[in-house]
């Protein structure tokens, strides 16, 4: 079985090297960085790290970058795809367990930062933004999850063949969940650690996601 770790990166020159090294250290050697039209030295950092990269000529959004990674995996016959954010907030140590979880009888494994207490969230995120995000996610997708949006998920071959991400922006998170349910794929959440280096999308990003979801699907 071959796994591909897809790392979407947009202007992550400072972090991407660390992310890739972290993945290497945990023995993940099939890594594909999807450089989403970065205007900084991301491409240079990726090359320096010695990892495979495909580049969008122009920035198309994280959803688009992940679908490019998925398409690469389909064309190169990978069995499992791991979506792993390139911003350095995820922990590569979580991948192994998530894949084991997948192999225990699931098609999709979704990372959640609320299933254990490793992630230290800013309180505004934990008590204000994410409960709202979870609720909106539930309304939009009909799936109740402990976490709403984070950059960690694992898809098996069946999920990879069936799910097509059409939401170019950040609404792809909800889209993947909704598609998982619609297609009758077996899914489960898995505890992952999120290290908070910076705040992330904030409220404005959240509103944009809802807008995208309503008007672009």
């Amino acid at each position, binding site marked *: 079985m071959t796994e591909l770790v897809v790392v979407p990166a947009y202007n992550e020159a400072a972090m991407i090297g660390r992310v890739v090294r972290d993945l290497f250290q945990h023995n993940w050697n099939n890594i594909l960085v999807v450089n989403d039209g970065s205007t900084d030295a991301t491409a240079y950092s990726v090359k320096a790290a010695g990892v495979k990269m495909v*580049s969008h000529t122009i920035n198309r959004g994280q959803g688009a970058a992940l*679908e*490019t990674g998925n398409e690469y995996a389909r*064309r190169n016959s990978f069995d499992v795809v791991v979506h792993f954010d390139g911003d350095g907030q995820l922990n590569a140590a979580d991948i192994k367990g998530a894949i084991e979880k997948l192999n225990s009888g699931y098609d999709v494994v979704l990372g959640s930062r609320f299933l254990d207490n490793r992630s230290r969230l800013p309180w505004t995120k934990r008590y204000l933004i994410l409960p709202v995000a979870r609720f909106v996610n539930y309304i939009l997708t009909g799936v109740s999850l402990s976490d709403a949006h984070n950059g960690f998920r694992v898809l098996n071959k069946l999920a990879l063949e069936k799910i097509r991400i059409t939401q*170019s922006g950040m609404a792809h998170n909800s889209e993947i969940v909704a598609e998982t349910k619609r297609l009758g794929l077996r899914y489960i959440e898995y505890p992952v650690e999120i290290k908070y280096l910076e705040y992330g999308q904030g409220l404005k990003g959240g509103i944009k996601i809802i807008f995208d979801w309503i008007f*672009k699907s």
Partner: protein
Amino acid sequence: MLVIQIILLFFFLFAWSRVFRKYRLNEIKLKELVIWSFFWLIAAIVVLVPNFTSTIAKIVGIGRGADLVIYMSVALLFYILFRVFIRLEKIENNITKITRELALKDNNKKE
């Protein structure tokens, strides 16, 4: 004739001349020329003979002709906006597809 009538008529004439120019430059099709000519012609009639809209307004149950024109215009604008929105979405998706293919093709070449 009221000043506003003259101003609007000149504007309509200008708008139509743009349409016609686009047709002559082969930028729009005959069908579009006909539709837009018809549109500006109706607009001109409405401005020249305001009672015309009042008559129709009474038939459909609206008090004033000017109100009818505004209601119709808003409905039409929303529809056009919707069409543009859909179109834009399609173009966005196509750009993403092209970008994706380019990215994956470039990668193949290197290997």
